[in-house]
């Protein structure tokens, strides 16, 4: 006789083979907690735990994730009893896309091996890129030096000492042409980590393609172009939030119309996490940044959400706490799908897809005993794969000290290839689905992330929250808390506060020749001599007019780079029209 309490709910039963204390097969109604038999077994286990007592294996007092989410000693069906597979988990390629965007997962298409790379001059980086492609990476990722990132030329007083150290030095289109020389831009996609000057570097890429006879409809890639997280975390700054968002909407509109294979934003959590945020903060602030951009494009450009949302992309960190990262990435997919469908009323399933690149956590690496970093990167890369990333960069063991040496970057590359070809984890879709722990953690992270989004909504949005210093203060608190935990030994970093050796391990480090700055200065001078100054002035004036009238700057930006206007000359136009923004120094 069916129990009346369950009349409106389909009954699902599970047949268990005879466990100790029960006779024969038992039909367990899993709508109830776990049924009599499991309850008995659970009580027995709880007694065993009490008798044995929890020891100090692993980390002292650490029964939390690295982000301080509590971790129970055991998870069981009771932890996910309110979940319904169809509604909450589902199949890949179907809303809410928890298990992935594509029906075929990695079997249909492996993640892109995309190693972030750049140093010295354009020629130096072109050589490293070709080596990485030859060694098996499947997508390019450009790292620019600090002057380029900040919209200064190599000859600016602000740039002194910085040229080519953290990435490749790009001042003009001539540098860019050398950067991509011999690389088939219609057959390989390129991601560029560039924010305030994103319009300029993208314009250079577009110009380079056109000059090699490739139409804009055939180039694919990504520009990071996510200013909100700059104010929050990465701090490559130029103009205030409002005009920064306007420039981003310009790129989204231009891409939608003319460069359909391009991801015009990579809405990023990586840097938010590196600055010291928790996993929940990383997820929540990233998604809320995305919401801010979508709102702006719709309001400012009048585009339908489905026209541009499929080309929004994301970028997450893969930190050292394995299951927390997997859960975070799964939660990201389910949350973005819901935001697109329910908040923005998207109709096209492709608008609901969360497509993301991942980088293993730089901040988890240690200067001490650097070879341990190979292990950390491998674990983090594995988590990213089990989290379903579309694209992956693995850090090199020496990156606490310098940009990767040839040998170190090779190991990082092989790490991905070993995971892909030897471990088997890519052979089945979302293999951790159904894990009591992982599903429970996914739910918890999601719930906490919604709360942050609600708070920021109530503040009036992300720009308002940034002005109030809210995400910056959250990060400052979280990073300070972590540091204190580390120094008390409540969190472990092997080689730093546990298993410390006095033995110095010397590793070869990549040294950027101080001469690079002189070489680049020479190149810049030569371009300025060769170019037609009147063309440059005209182009910059046209760009300035567009900035003032609010027109889309991209076409004028492309003309400007073709005239060989420099990165700084173009950015100075933005500074002049939109004003400059300085770091608030919140700590």
């Amino acid at each position, binding site marked *: 006789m069916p129990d009346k309490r369950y009349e409106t709910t389909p009954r699902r039963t599970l047949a268990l083979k005879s466990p100790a204390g029960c006779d024969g097969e038992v039909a367990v109604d899993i709508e109830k907690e776990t049924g009599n038999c499991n309850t008995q077994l659970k009580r027995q286990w709880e007694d065993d735990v009490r008798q044995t007592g929890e020891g100090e294996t692993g980390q002292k007092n650490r029964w939390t994730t690295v982000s301080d989410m509590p971790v129970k000693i055991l998870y069981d069906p009771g932890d996910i009893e309110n979940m319904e597979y169809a509604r909450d988990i589902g199949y890949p390629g179907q809303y809410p896309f928890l298990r992935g965007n594509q029906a075929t997962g990695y079997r249909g298409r492996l993640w892109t091996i995309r190693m972030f790379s750049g140093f010295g001059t354009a020629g130096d980086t072109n050589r490293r890129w070709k080596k990485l492609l030859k060694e098996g990476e499947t997508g390019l990722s450009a790292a620019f030096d600090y002057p380029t990132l900040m919209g200064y030329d190599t000859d600016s007083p602000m740039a002194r*000492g*910085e040229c080519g*150290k953290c990435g490749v030095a790009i001042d003009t289109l001539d540098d860019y042409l050398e950067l991509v020389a011999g690389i088939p831009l219609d057959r390989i996609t390129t991601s560029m980590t560039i924010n305030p000057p994103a319009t300029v570097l993208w314009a250079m890429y577009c110009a380079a393609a056109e000059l090699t006879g490739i139409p804009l409809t055939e180039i694919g890639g990504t520009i990071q172009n996510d200013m909100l997280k700059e104010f929050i975390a990465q*701090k490559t700054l130029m103009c205030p939030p409002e005009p920064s968002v306007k420039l981003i909407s310009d790129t989204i509109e231009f891409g939608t119309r003319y460069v359909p294979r391009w991801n015009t934003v990579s809405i990023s959590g990586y840097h938010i996490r590196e600055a010291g945020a928790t996993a929940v903060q990383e997820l929540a602030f990233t998604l809320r940044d995305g919401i801010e951009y979508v709102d702006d494009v719709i309001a400012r450009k009048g585009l339908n959400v489905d026209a541009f949302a499929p080309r929004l992309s994301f970028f997450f960190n893969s930190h050292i706490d394995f299951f927390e990262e997997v859960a975070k990435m799964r939660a990201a997919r389910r949350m973005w799908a819901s935001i697109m469908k329910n908040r923005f009323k998207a109709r096209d399933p492709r608008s609901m897809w969360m497509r993301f690149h991942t980088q293993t956590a730089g901040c988890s690496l240690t200067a*001490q005993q650097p070879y341990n970093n190979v292990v950390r990167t491998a674990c983090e890369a594995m988590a990213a794969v089990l989290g379903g990333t579309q694209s992956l960069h693995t850090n090199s063991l020496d990156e*606490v000290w310098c940009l990767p040496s040839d040998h170190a970057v090779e190991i990082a590359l092989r790490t991905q290839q070993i995971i892909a070809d030897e471990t088997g984890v890519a052979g089945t879709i979302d293999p951790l689905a159904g894990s009591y722990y992982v599903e429970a953690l996914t739910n918890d992270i999601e719930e906490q992330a919604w709360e942050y989004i609600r708070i920021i909504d109530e503040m009036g949005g992300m720009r308002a929250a940034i002005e109030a210093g809210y995400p910056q203060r959250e990060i400052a608190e979280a*990073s300070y808390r972590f540091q204190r935990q580390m120094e008390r030994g409540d969190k472990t*970093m092997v080689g730093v506060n546990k298993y410390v050796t006095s033995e110095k391990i010397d590793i070869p480090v990549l040294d950027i020749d101080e001469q690079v700055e002189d070489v680049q200065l020479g190149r810049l001078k030569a371009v300025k001599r060769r170019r037609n100054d009147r063309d440059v002035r005209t182009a910059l004036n046209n760009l300035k007019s567009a900035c003032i009238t609010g027109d889309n700057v991209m076409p004028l930006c492309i003309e400007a780079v073709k005239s060989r206007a420099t990165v700084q000359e173009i950015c100075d136009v933005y500074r002049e029209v939109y004003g400059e923004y*300085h*770091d608030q120094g919140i700590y």
Partner: protein
Amino acid sequence: MGTLRIMIAKPGLDGHDRGARVLARFLRDSGFEVIYTGCHQTPEQIVRAALQEDVDIVGLSCLSGAHRYLFPRVVELLREQGADDIVVIGGGIIPEGDFAFLSDAGIRAVFTPGTPLEDIAAWIRTHVARDGRETAWTE
């Protein structure tokens, strides 16, 4: 001995501020008076602020590799202003091979990744007095 005043500054274009932020907070909680400049300060701006704020110590943080130019430049400008008594220390991504160069240029100590915050505070208390003179080294 009065409360020591320390300016934590980020010279150059480097935006990696986590270490500087966390150190600034720790020193404040430990009883120092702290001024944090935020990112993207020129050496000129740092020196001007250091003099205005009458600090005893300037701590420079740089992770971009530009320290070989920026750190000595700050010391040079302080000396030009007759502020030799301000103790300048540095931190960030600084290869060991550069320690001697920086020391010769007047950087009194360099703190690299993994240094406990308390060690930095202890060094300052041991080596700097409020009247601006360095105390005896206790090596």
